[in-house]
């Protein structure tokens, strides 16, 4: 296979002969492009040009386009341009390449940078409004689906819910226990480390007890569930949406909210409180172990102090929040899942959105609960 060449021949009375030779193929396109460009721009004064392709051994669309491109430049300058020595088999190829316009219609640029920025801010705000509407709409559809199921309990997808219970609940138990155990341990260690300065080691039990039961237990569990199960919900529903499975359900007369979403959200509502309970216990256990090994607080002392410092109220505050958090996580995950469009990229983006938004909303909701409980004096 010989390298491709383009040799500038003789200039006579304003005419230029160029001779192309070798393999004008994709492999050589990189070397050919500068050659062709040089020949095109070096000879601006010529009035007539002949490109001889007799000695071209192989030609493909790359070679043909490079020749066609230079021809177009010449012709646009008003130069008479001609190709000679083209064999029949390559003639077809040239005709095919020549048939194309070879360029895009230019894009119309809109506005300047200031209006573009304003526009993007406006669009973001509209997206937030649209999100709120979507969540409200989904909450409404859920209530409707729920009432329908209450009226006809046989319609409820019990098997589906049990399946989800296993996946979001049972399978999550080990990792939840491990993480909350570690969080409890860290809280206790930090507490002992700083309280020791004041000789108030024992108060670490109060701190760990109240913090874990009221806030940390439920928050850590919800963040884990949002990352673990919320993302899975979004990805599942999203890929079902992409493959038109959701539309198929709808055409068969089923309500996707009832069939797909209600069992998932029910599974979350049941699971999150249980996981919160298990998580809180594991965190207290972790705190107790660290208090014993690191702070020298005897387990019996720890338990006695815990008994004094916390009440059923602290426990209830944490547990009451759990199902609400579950609804928020489930709603966000399902709404985002149904927003997925055709591309793999949009599935990824929506899954990310789902996790980010549900964690954000869980924390906002926790804040709202804190204000509420403070104002009713619990």
């Amino acid at each position, binding site marked *: 296979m010989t390298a491709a060449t383009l040799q500038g021949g003789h200039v006579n009375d304003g005419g230029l002969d160029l001779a192309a030779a070798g393999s004008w193929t*994709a492999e050589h396109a990189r070397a050919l492009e500068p050659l062709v460009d040089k020949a095109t721009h070096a000879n601006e004064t010529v009035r007539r040009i002949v490109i001889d392709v007799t000695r071209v051994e192989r030609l493909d669309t790359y070679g043909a386009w490079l020749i066609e491109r230079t021809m177009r430049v010449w012709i646009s300058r008003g130069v008479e341009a001609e190709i000679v020595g083209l064999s029949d088999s390559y003639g077809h190829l040239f005709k095919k390449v020549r048939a194309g316009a*070879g*360029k895009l219609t230019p894009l119309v640029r809109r506005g300047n940078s200031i209006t573009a920025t304003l526009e993007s801010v406006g669009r973001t705000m509209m997206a937030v409004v649209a999100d709120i509407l979507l969540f409200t709409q989904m909450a409404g559809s859920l209530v409707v689906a729920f009432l329908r199921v209450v009226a006809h309990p046989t319609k409820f997808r019990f098997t589906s819910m049990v399946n989800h219970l296993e996946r979001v609940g049972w399978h999550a138990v080990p990792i939840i226990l491990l993480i909350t155990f570690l969080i409890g341990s860290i809280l206790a260690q930090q507490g002992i480390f700083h309280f020791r300065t004041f000789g108030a080691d024992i108060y670490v039990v109060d701190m760990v007890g109240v913090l874990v039961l009221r806030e940390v237990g439920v928050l850590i569990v919800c963040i884990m569930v949002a990352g673990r199960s919320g993302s899975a919900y979004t990805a599942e529903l999203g890929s079902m949406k992409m493959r038109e499975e959701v539309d198929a359900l709808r055409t068969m007369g089923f309500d996707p909210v009832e069939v797909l979403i209600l069992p998932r959200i029910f599974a979350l509502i049941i699971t999150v409180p249980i996981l919160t309970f298990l998580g809180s216990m594991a965190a207290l256990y972790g705190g107790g172990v660290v208090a014993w090994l690191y702070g020298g607080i005897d387990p019996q002392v720890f338990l006695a102090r815990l008994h004094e410092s916390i009440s059923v109220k602290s426990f209830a505050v944490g547990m009451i929040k759990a199902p609400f958090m579950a609804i928020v996580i489930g709603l966000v995950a399902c709404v985002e899942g149904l927003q997925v469009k055709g*591309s*793999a990229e949009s599935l990824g983006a929506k899954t990310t959105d789902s996790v980010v938004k549900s964690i954000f909303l869980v924390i906002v909701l926790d804040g709202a609960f804190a204000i509420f409980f403070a104002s009713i004096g619990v």
Partner: protein
Amino acid sequence: MALPPTEAVIKVQDLVVELDTRRVLNGVKLDLLRGEILGFVGASGAGKSVLTRTIIGLLPKREGLIEVLGVDLDKADDREKQAVDRRWGVLFQQGALFSSLSAGKNVEFPIREYLGLSQKLTTEMAISKLEMVGLKPDVYRNFPSELSGGMIKRVALARALALDPEILFLDEPTSGLDPISAGEFDQLILTLQETLGVSIFMVTHDLDSLHRTCDRIAVLGNGKIIEAGTMDQMLGSNHPWLKSYFHGARAHDDWHVPVKG
């Protein structure tokens, strides 16, 4: 490196492929000759896709020889394999366009990776390929999710053609297309064969398409090639499956009249 005109660009011999423990292909022997369009048919589940995927290296084989463009893919090192990869193009059944890239960027992808041309030439070649498969240049900017099924197939074909391959694998190119688009697609395949001299391996169930485009037809059944030959030979065959395939309810009377010639 150019092969003589009648030489086989793909040579498959005694190919055995097993999926799990099920023997899907059992001693397949098949040649694709330079410049021909080979139609490949067989009942659903007979292993057409398995053979195609084995040749292009997506499935492992148990025994046998696969030679593509004179290279034994078993003995070839990574560089030789890659050199073969860029000399074939594959059109997947669903198009398999990268959904995060626009149509034009999909076509540019192999050009950019393999040839390293200037951005200007890369874009121009992508547009030229899009126009070659009968699309408007502005499709370049559309994303796959914005395109119809027929357009996706065309863009996928443009991507398969991006590097001016010598061999083109088409997996059911006309399935899911309306008769007009399917007819246009057949014509397009014929034009490509004529202008680019590309050898085409086409898996299809479309009898019209087989009749209009294929130089030869190979039939797969029971893990072997039952028969290979021209459309006329197929129509004259006494094999019961071939009889029901080519003389069934979907068959036309005028197939004895050659279209190509």
